[in-house]
């Protein structure tokens, strides 16, 4: 460790640290423009100047490059420092008078204007892009060219670079936003679509999936991370103060022993692409319900502004109910929540824009507490409700006012006429459908599916959160379309059910296990082959098969297959079933 004094305070830093790092440890603010945690110090901008006091006088150094030394005395706010920094900024302001970071920093120094002739450049020549490209991306696609006043950042020979990967790292680090990727490469950058924003915005290779994610920590997308793909970059590791980035981490499978399971795998929104007459995926402003959810959300890609692809505010919006639900060709069931979320959408469009809103519905199902009241409120807000399912969305106009619009064609079943509604935005309120992997999940937990594919509860009225298997509970939309209040209620009930099982600490085995009568068993071991749970073992000494009761699940397959009548099943004994048969058939003519 090295000990030095900055502005009268003593600080200890590790060998190899810079004066800037030492100052930051003391929380002393020194402005910087060309320094970046992930990159080597460079000393280009010179705004980080500090005064070093030596035995034979003092001198100025760039703190980002000057190494901390034992006994060093540093002054960061001396007159000389401030005066020189001001001149540096004045010169920079002359070069780049319109660049925000420079203007802000200058203003902080009390500089409103520069006395030098202005040039109107936007690159401050900090070299961050050059360094990130060379040091981190290992590409070296951009460099400084020329000297003195002609100095600039460019790809070699002023041509498009052959080695640029269009990763965009240069754009990200540039403090002035002046990197134009199209001047560096002909490759198109491939933004990584944000899954949470339904692809309406992009995300980094390291990202927090969404604001409320649990755990709320970033993850690295190994399919796009340059470091994991080819060993370059590693910027996030250099950045992370907590030293939490570990590129060697591997996917692991963890086995957890549990006493009960709550299946809450939810639903999948109907893929509107399946019905191509609504133009989803073809027209820019035909949105899925989830896309509109993101657009209307304050943390979404448009920060909550309801706008079209081109940034304009829509003048008319149509919301089409029942897309994929109550439709014999797709899903027969009513998705229950779509009417209500469509009303929410109508309300949000009204709140955020001046647009006319049309809701096209088959029946209005405002089924819950306060929902009918909400419907009334939305009616009062001037939303147009048209009873009839939309037939078509087209951009083929028939009249001048339809020009440039999306036209929703629908039969208004109350008026008995076909209507054409010219709108700017169409929202498709899709069905809640079973998760595509529900059959697999069902198999793992021995869950059956109801018609329509949602998991089957033990009893629709008396056991709506239990499944057919003891200890496995159902909660939420995996059991059937439902809204948040109902999902929460079912979740709480399932948790209580699970807890009461766990609390007991033991499981009661149904008294239906199989048993093998020693004297009758011939030791043929057919039952061993029949048992799906390997619950039967062969006792060599006695030449008989023996059931391990704890493993037996009581299917009775071994019993049915035993040729010597040695295997029997408790409470499903042959005699009992024979008696049942006799009972059923008493009085029959034979």
């Amino acid at each position, binding site marked *: 460790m090295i000990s030095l004094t900055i502005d009268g305070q003593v600080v200890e830093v590790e060998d190899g640290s810079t004066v800037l790092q030492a100052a930051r440890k003391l929380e002393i603010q020194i402005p910087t423009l060309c320094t970046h945690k992930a990159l080597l110090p460079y000393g280009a901008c010179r705004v980080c100047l500090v005064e070093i006091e030596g035995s034979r006088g003092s001198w100025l150094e760039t703190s980002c490059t000057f190494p901390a030394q034992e006994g060093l005395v540093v002054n960061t706010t001396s007159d000389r420092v401030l005066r020189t920094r001001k001149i540096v900024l004045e010169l920079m302001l002359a070069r780049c008078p319109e660049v925000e970071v420079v203007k802000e920093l200058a203003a902080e120094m009390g500089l409103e204007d520069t006395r030098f002739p202005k040039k109107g450049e936007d690159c401050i020549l900090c070299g961050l892009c050059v360094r990130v490209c060379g040091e981190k991306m290992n590409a070296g696609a951009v460099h400084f060219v020329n000297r003195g006043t002609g100095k600039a950042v460019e790809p070699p020979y002023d041509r498009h670079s052959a080695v640029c990967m269009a990763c965009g790292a240069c754009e990200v680090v540039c403090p002035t936003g002046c990197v134009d990727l199209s001047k560096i490469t002909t490759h198109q950058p491939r933004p990584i679509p944000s899954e949470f924003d339904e692809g309406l915005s992009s995300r980094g290779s390291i990202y927090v999936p969404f604001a409320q994610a649990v755990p709320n920590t970033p993850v690295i997308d190994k399919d796009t991370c340059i470091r994991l793909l080819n060993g370059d970059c590693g910027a996030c590791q250099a950045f992370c103060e907590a030293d939490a980035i570990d590129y060697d981490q591997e996917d692991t499978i963890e086995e957890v022993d549990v006493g009960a399971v709550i299946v809450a795998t939810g639903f999948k929104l109907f893929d509107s692409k399946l019905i191509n007459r609504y133009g989803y995926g073809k027209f820019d402003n035909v949105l899925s319900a989830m896309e509109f959810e993101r657009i209307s959300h304050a943390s979404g890609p448009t920060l909550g502004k309801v706008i079209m692809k081109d940034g304009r505010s829509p003048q008319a919006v149509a919301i089409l109910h029942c897309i994929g639900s109550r439709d014999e060709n797709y899903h027969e069931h009513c998705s229950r929540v779509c009417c209500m979320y469509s009303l929410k959408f109508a309300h949000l469009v009204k709140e955020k824009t001046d647009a006319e809103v049309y809701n096209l519905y088959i029946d209005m199902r405002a089924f819950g507490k306060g929902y009918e009241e909400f419907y009334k409120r939305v009616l009062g807000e001037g939303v147009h409700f048209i009873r009839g399912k939309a037939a078509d969305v087209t951009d083929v106009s028939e009249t001048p006012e339809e020009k440039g619009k999306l036209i929703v064609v629908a039969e208004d079943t109350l008026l008995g006429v076909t209507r054409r509604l010219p709108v700017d935005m169409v929202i498709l309120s899709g069905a809640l459908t079973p998760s595509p992997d529900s059959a697999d999940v069902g198999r793992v937990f*021995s869950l059956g*599916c109801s018609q329509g594919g949602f998991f089957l509860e033990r009893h629709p009225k008396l056991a709506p959160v239990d499944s057919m298997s003891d200890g496995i509970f159902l909660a939420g939309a995996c059991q059937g379309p439902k809204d948040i209040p109902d999902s929460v209620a079912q979740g709480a009930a399932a948790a209580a059910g699970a807890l009461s099982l766990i609390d007991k600490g033991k499981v009661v085995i149904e008294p239906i296990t199989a048993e093998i009568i020693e004297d009758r068993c011939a030791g043929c071991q057919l039952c061993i082959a029949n048992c799906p749970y390997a619950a039967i073992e062969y006792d060599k000494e006695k030449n008989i098969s023996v059931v391990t009761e704890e493993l037996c699940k009581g299917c009775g397959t071994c*019993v049915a*297959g035993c040729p010597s009548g040695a295997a029997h099943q408790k409470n499903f004994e042959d005699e009992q079933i024979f008696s049942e048969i006799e009972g059923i058939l008493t009085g029959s003519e034979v």
Partner: protein
Amino acid sequence: MADQQFEPKIVGFLCRWCSYTGADLAGTSRMQYPPTLTGIRVMCSGRVDPTFVVKALKEGADGVLIAGCHPGDCHYSEGNYKAMRRHPMLANLLEQFGIERGRVRLEWISASEGELFAEVVTDFTEQLQELGPLNWNQRIEADCETV
């Protein structure tokens, strides 16, 4: 030809995980089907010992339905495959005693398929009406005499 008045008696061995619940669903959904079948709950179609079927026919049933989970869906993984393998053997055996194959049916009916359950019972009933009453004693006696 079929005696329309004849109401066959059917014994159903229903897997508790699927068909038994399916039958329940048919009932709670108020589906219409002939009241010809009485179900016996078993833990799995794999539990159905061929002697159950013979016993039922002997006691006066005109037909027997064994219903289990769809292939791949058996609660005990493969009990229904065992049932599937036993069924043709039993049918062959019964045929040798002059009992038509159509009197013993194996079906896969899941817990959500109340409608299918009703359909199967309706169809099976009609089929048995075509075949007429089984009259086990007469047949077996006749059979024994010829031997």
